[in-house]
C-alpha cells in the first residue's frame, strides 16, 4: 500500500487537530488564526471543527497573548500560541524569556510551563525588513526553552505533537516557504523526538548541517553535488535546542569537512554554536576550515534585485562545499549575488 502524503502545512494542521481532539487542555491563541492570509493552510477550519472558544484569534497584543498562554499553562492547560510572523513576536520577549523559560528553574521544579510558542517565518515577496526575519538564534541562547525547526511534512507533524506533550516551553518555528513541500505523513499521531537530528543523505567527503528551509535546500545541494562528483552527507538538525551534538560530530569524524547552513545571520547564530562545538570536540578530524552559509549581514531588502541576492539557496550551499574542497575558487571579495545568494563565510581560497 502506498503511504499517505500530506503537505507541510496540512501536516501542521493535522497535528493541531489531533492534539485538540485528544486533549481538552489544548487550545490555540494568536493573531490571524481564522484567516489563511496569516497562517496559510496550517490552521484551516480548525475554528469550525473545534469552536472559536478553543481557537482564539486574538487582538493585536503579542505580549499579552503570549503571557496569557504562559499563565494558562501554569494553571494546567496546554496552550499553543501562534505568531504569524516571527518579527512581531519580538514584542513578546518578556513572557517567553523572563517568564516561560525561567519559571520551572526559578521555583525549584515545583511548576512547569507546558506551552508551545509557534512563530512562523514568513518572508520573500518583497516584504522587507520587518516581515522577513528568522530569530532562532535568540532562543537557542536561553536555558529553559527548547527550539525545533521542522523541514519536512513528517517532522512538521511529529515535532508539533512532541512539543505539545513535552511539558516545557517549546518554540516551534515553521517556515511558509516549506508549506507546499509534500511528504509521507502517517495518519496516526506520532512524535519526532526533540533533540534528534536526521541524516537526509549519507556521504563521505563533507558534512552539511542545516535546519528548516536551509535543510531542504541542502538536500537539493546534496543531489547537485553528487552530479558534480562530490559525495556530501546532509544532516537536518530538526531541533536547535537541545541539538544533536553526537550526530554532527560522528559525521564530521567520518567526512573531515563541515559546512553549516543556517537561515539567519552568522554572528552569534546557530551555525556559530555548531562550529564552536565541532571545533572543540573534533578539531583533529577536520581537514579544512569550517564553512558557514548565512544571511548577509544586513536587514532584508524589498527591491527584487536585492532580495534575489539576499536569501541563501541550494546553490549557495553547493558553492560553499565546492570551495571548501578546492574545486572552485570563491570570488574575492565574496559578495551575495543572484547566482549565489546569501553569504558564505570561508577564506576565499577554500582550505
Amino acid at each position, binding site marked *: 500500500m502506498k503511504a499517505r502524503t500530506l503537505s507541510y502545512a496540512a501536516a501542521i494542521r493535522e497535528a493541531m487537530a489531533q492534539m485538540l481532539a485528544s486533549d481538552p487542555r489544548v487550545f490555540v491563541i494568536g493573531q490571524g488564526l481564522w484567516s489563511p492570509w496569516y497562517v496559510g493552510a496550517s490552521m484551516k477550519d480548525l475554528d469550525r471543527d473545534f469552536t472559536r472558544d478553543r481557537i482564539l484569534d486574538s487582538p493585536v497584543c503579542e505580549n499579552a497573548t503570549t503571557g496569557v498562554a504562559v499563565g494558562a499553562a501554569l494553571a494546567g*492547560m496546554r496552550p499553543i500560541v501562534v505568531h504569524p510572523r516571527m518579527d512581531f513576536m519580538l514584542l513578546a520577549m518578556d513572557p517567553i524569556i523572563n517568564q516561560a523559560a525561567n519559571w520551572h528553574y526559578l*521555583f525549584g521544579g515545583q511548576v512547569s510551563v507546558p506551552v508551545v510558542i509557534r512563530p512562523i517565518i514568513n518572508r520573500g515577496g518583497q516584504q522587507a525588513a520587518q516581515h522577513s526575519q528568522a530569530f532562532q538564534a535568540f532562543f537557542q541562547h536561553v536555558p529553559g526553552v527548547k527550539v525545533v525547526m521542522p523541514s519536512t511534512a513528517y517532522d512538521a507533524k511529529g515535532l508539533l505533537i512532541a512539543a505539545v506533550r513535552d511539558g516545557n516551553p517549546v518554540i516551534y518555528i515553521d517556515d511558509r516557504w516549506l508549506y507546499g513541500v509534500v511528504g509521507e505523513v502517517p495518519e496516526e499521531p506520532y512524535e519526532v523526538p526533540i533533540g534528534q537530528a536526521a541524516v537526509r543523505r549519507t556521504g563521505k567527503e563533507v558534512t552539511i548541517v542545516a535546519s528548516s528551509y536551509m535543510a531542504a535546500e541542502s538536500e537539493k545541494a546534496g543531489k547537485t553535488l553528487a552530479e558534480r562528483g562530490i559525495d556530501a552527507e546532509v544532516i537536518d538538525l530538526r531541533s536547535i535546542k537541545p541539538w544533536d551534538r553526537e550526530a554532527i560530530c560522528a559525521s564530521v569524524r567520518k567526512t573531515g569537512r563541515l559546512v553549516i547552513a543556517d537561515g539567519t545571520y552568522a554572528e552569534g547564530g546557530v551555525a556559530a554554536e555548531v562550529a564552536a562545538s565541532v571545533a572543540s570536540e573534533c578539531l583533529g578530524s577536520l581537514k579544512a576550515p569550517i564553512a558557514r552559509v548565512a544571511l548577509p549581514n544586513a536587514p532584508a531588502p524589498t527591491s527584487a534585485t536585492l532580495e534575489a541576492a539576499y536569501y541563501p539557496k541550494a546553490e549557495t550551499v553547493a558553492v560553499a562545499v565546492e570551495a571548501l574542497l578546492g574545486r572552485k575558487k570563491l570570488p574575492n571579495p565574496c559578495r551575495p549575488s543572484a547566482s549565489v545568494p546569501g553569504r558564505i563565510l570561508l577564506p576565499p581560497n577554500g582550505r
Partner: protein
Amino acid sequence: MTSISKSALHQMYRTMLRIRLFEERLSDMLETDEVKCPCHLCIGQEAVAAGVCAALKKDDYVWGTHRSHGHYLAKGGDMSAMMAEILGKAGGCAKGRGGSMHLFAGEQNLLGTVPIVAATIPLAVGAGLAAKMRRDGRVSVSFFGDGATEEGHFHESVNLAALYRLPVIFVCENNLYSSHMHISQRRPADNIYKFAELYEIPGIRLDGNDVVAVYEAAREVVGKARKGQGPALIECRTYRWRGHVGPARDLDVGVKRKDELKEWMAKCPIDRAGKLLVEMGVLQQELEKDGAAIRAEVEEAVNFARSSAYPDEAELENHVYYERQGDQ
C-alpha cells in the same frame, strides 16, 4: 456601617499583623546584613493583600510582584518557607532559587510573584482563561503597583480579560511611588481606576488602608467574576512606609518624604482595624495576645530558615527543564 463579622475582621487583623511583624523582623535582618537578597517591603500596605485574599478560596489564583511578602502570607503561604527562601536555603518556598522577589506557594495557588513590572498581569489573565475554559469557578487575582499601569501589557491584558469576560480581578496597589518617582512625575493625572471605564469593566477606587473596604469590594467583584460576569479593576490607595527596596524609612533611592510618611503612618491599617475590633467588643488583651503569638511564629520562621541547609552546588543545573513522564 460595616456588615463584616467580628471573626472575619479579626482574621484579617491577624493576617495584617503577620505581614507587618514578619517584615519588621526581616527589616532588622537586612540592617544587620544577615539578609543580603534585595527585599521590597510592603509595611503600611498590608490591608490590600489581607482584604482581597480574605475574599478568595484556596483554589483561586494569585499573582504578584517584587513586593509580595504580603500576598504570599495572605494567600496562606508558609511563613518559615518564605524566610528560608529569603536566606537562599533549600527549605525555601522556591528551594533557594528565587529569594524575596520570586515567591511560590503552589498548594495555595499562588503560582508566582516576579519582579519584572507587570509581567504577571497577562499570566493572571491566562489562569482566568484556563478557569473559564474548564468552567471550574476559580478566580484569578493580579496584584500590581501603580507603576505597572504604565506598561503596555497591563492594557493588553485588561483588554483581553474584558473581551473574553474572564474571572480576573486586577488589584492596583497605588502607593504613589514607582521606585523613586512620584505618580505626578509619571502620569498626567492620578486616575488609574478610570482605565476600567475604557474597557467597560467595573473600576473601583478605595482607601487601601481600610481593610474592610478592600474586603467588601473584593468580595463583590470576586463573586461576580465567579458567576461569569467578567473582570474588574480595584485601585487601592495606600503608602509604603519603607523605601522602594530595603529597610530604609524616609530616605530611599534619592527620595525624601518625611512629612508625607508621617501623615500616612497615622493612617496605619492595622491600628485602624484594631480600633474597630475593640469597638466591636474584642478585648485589647486579645489583640496583644495575637501580637505575642505572631512574634513567636516569626521567631520560629527565623529559626527554621537559619537551620535549613543551603542547596548543594551539585544541584545548580537541576530543574532547567521539566523531565517528561510518559505521554502526560
